[in-house]
């Protein structure tokens, strides 16, 4: 066997703390190594071409690249190796950047460690075998989880591209947070005028199946062939009959149900249609507040429903959908400001959240678009906005910037002047972050045209004084304390992960970050992919985002899915388990531990029972290999021999003995 080793400097990223030439020199002495060299940027075009040239010139059978993490560039170099005419699996990577040069400070030790990692890769490569993927058919359908603006965009793009789309929305209507907004920045155009027609498109598109008031219960299978169980929660209304006329809502006597759509600004009826433009526009009963369901005495809605749609006996059902790809667009939740005792912690009625204010500004909201104090219904003359409530605060575990609060606060301050002419508006801010197109101009307009008074500093306390509120804080530009009397205080609450994100991530087998947002495959190179093949991300579920960014990512995710399905088949990962029939004794322990049911019992021609791996079902975890006592099941590319060779390569090094 003739192997080539390429040690990358990565500019100074590696070379600054690893002696790359020394590593290459050491590699030349390793078994089967016929060629070793160091290069400045191995992943660059000349770097890759040097590999191709060396394979030809030295007749190499395999290549080791010592550079960055295989999670970063393994695919890149596998393609390079394939271009050089080798099997892409005759390649190994030694991670001497993330695991060596970036974490170790001592050049001598780093060089020794890098050499060990190269030796390990060489020993593994010596035991690699060419692997060939198989083609398997795919289900050209896509599941979109979440029907906010990102989910809507992704669903429409996929459907317009000719795919069948299954859209699952947890609430009874799609629309998400954007549907709750009155206006959008920086154009101050009507949110529902922008979103409404897209929601209608979803309802009318022949390629989209919408499961509203539903959740993803479980997911099995793999890219190209997922099977998704969708739990359709009980609405107690037969949606095939409901016309959305709203008679039931008008007559319902239970008026104390929570109304999440209006952010708790007003109560809702126990049977409800969240907003006039809802898609689907169907009623849903809240079983915790319905008098019929809690006490058995009412039945008003059933009596008044002209189409006989009410069904108090309804139970939840589960439907199974087969899809080939999944786009997660579950959005975000707003921070609960009760954590901040100094802002009243929910005790002062006239301290409200920005979403409550948004509903107040909306003509279809509970106040009909009038800005009124919750405490006494009076129009406020002075409104104070406090930014970064639940953002950029390590002490409450929210160290990140939510990104959009600066902008929506400016929008709300501008709208305040439109709704209450002559009202005084103040904004307490830490920094203004307005890096989008037309964003900074918008902030300027708020300050200069609308006279919004921006105070740079944190608010230390809000306290009532008579029927007004005193907002006390620091003005860090003036280096003085300021005190503003306000009639209404609006807290610009930040974004946090959607409830249930962790559970959904576990169901989909994707990762979430420390703040509960879904993790992308790579922050720069794979920003809409996850590390699970066939699962993509769109919108604020991946991190706080405003509408343009969410829509962009949704279209990107849709493009990824369309690209995935561009051919009728997918190539399976050949890194799957394989049973050696000569070694299998048919104990079938592997069958009991396989998480995917990828092992089946097979009777050989000699009549003996043996295990067999279904290659397209196997996901390559290797649980079976450890279960098999005689090593008859081996995971290709991670065989016992390959791992043992790596261990041996690390252990054989002479060490001081104490014996």
């Amino acid at each position: 066997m003739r192997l080539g080793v390429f040690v990358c400097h990565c500019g100074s990223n590696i070379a600054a703390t690893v002696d790359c030439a020394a590593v290459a020199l050491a590699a030349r002495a390793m078994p089967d190594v016929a060629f070793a060299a160091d290069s400045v940027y191995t992943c660059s075009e000349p770097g890759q071409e040097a590999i191709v040239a060396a394979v030809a010139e030295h007749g190499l059978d395999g290549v080791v690249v010592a550079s960055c993490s295989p999670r970063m560039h393994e695919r890149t170099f596998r393609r390079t190796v394939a271009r050089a005419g080798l099997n892409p699996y005759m390649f190994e990577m030694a991670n001497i950047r993330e695991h060596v040069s970036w974490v170790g400070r001592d050049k001598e030790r780093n060089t020794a460690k890098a050499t060990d990692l190269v030796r390990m890769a060489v020993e593994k490569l010596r035991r690699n075998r060419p692997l060939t993927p198989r083609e398997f058919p795919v289900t050209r359908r896509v599941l979109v989880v979440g029907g906010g603006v990102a989910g809507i965009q992704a669903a429409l793009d996929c459907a317009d591209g000719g795919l069948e789309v299954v859209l699952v929305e947890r609430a009874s209507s799609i629309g998400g947070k954007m549907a709750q907004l009155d206006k959008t920045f920086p154009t101050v155009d009507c949110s529902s005028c922008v979103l409404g027609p897209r929601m209608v498109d979803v309802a009318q598109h022949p390629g989209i199946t919408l499961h509203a008031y539903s959740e993803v219960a479980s997911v099995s299978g793999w890219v190209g062939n997922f099977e998704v169980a969708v739990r359709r929660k009980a609405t107690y209304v037969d949606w095939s009959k409901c016309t959305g006329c709203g008679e039931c809502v008008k007559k319902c006597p239970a008026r104390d149900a929570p109304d999440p759509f209006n952010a708790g600004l007003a109560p809702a009826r126990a049977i409800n249609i969240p907003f006039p433009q809802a898609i689907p526009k169907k009623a849903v009963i809240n079983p915790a507040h319905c008098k019929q369901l809690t006490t058995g005495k009412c039945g008003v809605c059933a009596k008044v429903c002209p189409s006989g749609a009410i069904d108090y006996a309804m139970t939840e059902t589960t439907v199974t959908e087969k899809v080939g790809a999944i786009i997660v667009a579950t959005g975000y939740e707003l921070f609960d400001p009760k954590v901040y005792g100094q802002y009243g912690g929910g005790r002062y009625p006239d301290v409200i959240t920005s979403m409550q204010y948004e509903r107040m500004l909306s003509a279809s909201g509970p106040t009909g678009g009038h800005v009124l104090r919750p405490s006494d219904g009076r129009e406020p003359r002075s409104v104070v906005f406090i930014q970064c409530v639940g953002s950029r605060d390590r002490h409450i575990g929210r160290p990140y910037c939510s990104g959009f609060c600066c902008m929506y606060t400016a929008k709300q301050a501008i709208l305040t002047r439109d709704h209450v002419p002559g009202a005084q508006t103040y904004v307490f801010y830490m920094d203004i972050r307005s890096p989008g197109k037309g964003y900074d101009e918008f902030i300027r307009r708020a300050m200069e045209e609308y006279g919004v008074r921006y105070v740079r500093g944190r608010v230390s306390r809000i306290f009532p004084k008579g029927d007004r509120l005193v907002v006390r804080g620091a003005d860090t530009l003036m280096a003085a304390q300021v005190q503003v009397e306000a009639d209404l205080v609006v807290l610009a609450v930040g974004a946090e992960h959607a409830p249930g994100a962790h559970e959904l991530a576990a169901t989909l087998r994707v990762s979430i970050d420390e703040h509960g947002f879904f993790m992308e495959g790579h922050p720069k190179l794979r920003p809409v992919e996850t590390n699970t093949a066939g699962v993509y991300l769109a919108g604020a579920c991946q991190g706080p985002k405003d509408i343009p960014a969410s829509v962009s990512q949704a279209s990107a995710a849709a493009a990824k899915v369309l690209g995935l399905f561009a051919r009728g088949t997918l190539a399976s990962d050949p890194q799957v388990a394989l049973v050696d029939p000569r070694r299998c004794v048919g104990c079938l322990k592997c069958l009991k531990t396989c998480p995917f049911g990828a092992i089946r019992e097979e009777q050989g021609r000699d009549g003996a029972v043996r295990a067999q791996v279904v290659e397209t079902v196997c996901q390559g975890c290797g649980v079976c290999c450890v279960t098999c006592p005689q090593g008859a099941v081996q995971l290709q590319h991670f065989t016992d021999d390959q791992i043992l060779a790596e261990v041996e390569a690390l252990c054989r090094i002479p060490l001081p003995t104490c014996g």
Partner: protein
Amino acid sequence: MSTAQDAASLETLRAELRRAACDALQAGAELVLGWGPGPDPATLAPLFAASPGECAALDFGPGAVQNLAGHLRALAGRKVAVCVKGCDSRSVAQLLAEGLLRREELVLIGLPCAGVLDRTRLAPGAPAPGDWACAAPDELLDPRCLRCRFPNPVLADVTIGPGRAPREPEGGPHADLDAFLARPVEERFRHWERELGRCLRCYACRNACPLCVCRDHCLAETRRPGWLSQSSSVREKLLFQVIHAVHTAGRCTECGQCQRACPVDIPVLTLKRVLAREAEALFGHVAGTDPAQVPPLLTFRAEEPTIPDHGAEEGR
């Protein structure tokens, strides 16, 4: 009890055993696996009886040391009867739990046991120090019999002879393990270095193990995968013992065949006992007590209350 009475009851027991064996053959068993006269007075050797005539030689007593369950896997597909002591029956139950034997192919003749002899404590050719009816003295028994929790078969179609009481040794059944574990760590390391230094790599321990069903495919004797080399180093010998212990973890019924088979008296059962004790502590699992039980390493629970959360501990 007088000697005459002993002799009478001994004959009654033998007659019962032989009748049960004949019944099994009558009921369709091809073979009866039991014990018969051995090379010396104190030993009962395995006896495979295929006819009522051969059954007449079947016997039992403290000399019936061997666990016959180890032969069953090779006889799979044929109906056989097998004589089992308490510990032997656990091997059968464990093999059943793993789907390696079929209950309908087995007739289990249960023999409550008062302990078997430790041959190393007897002079060669010495007379039998006890028989089926009259237990041998404790000091001549295999030490594992002195801590026996299962003297009566956990599984049997017919049971012959009076039930026996489990042993309750002073200091608990693991006092010797605890004493070993109390020694300094390096001493324990050197203990195995010294013990395995004697190992001949004969694999008698493995061949005697009723749970070792890999047979000709054992990791020890293949180079693909290459877990072990042919080098006669302590490292390879010790690693083989660890492989054997890990492969029988959660399965080993501590029948002791491995240790008894060792020609150079390496205490190879110790590692297996440690794993069995820990498997019981962690998973509440006593191997070979319930043929319906899934072995603990073939399953899991999402919440494992007995396993410390090593993640949280380090992540403070």
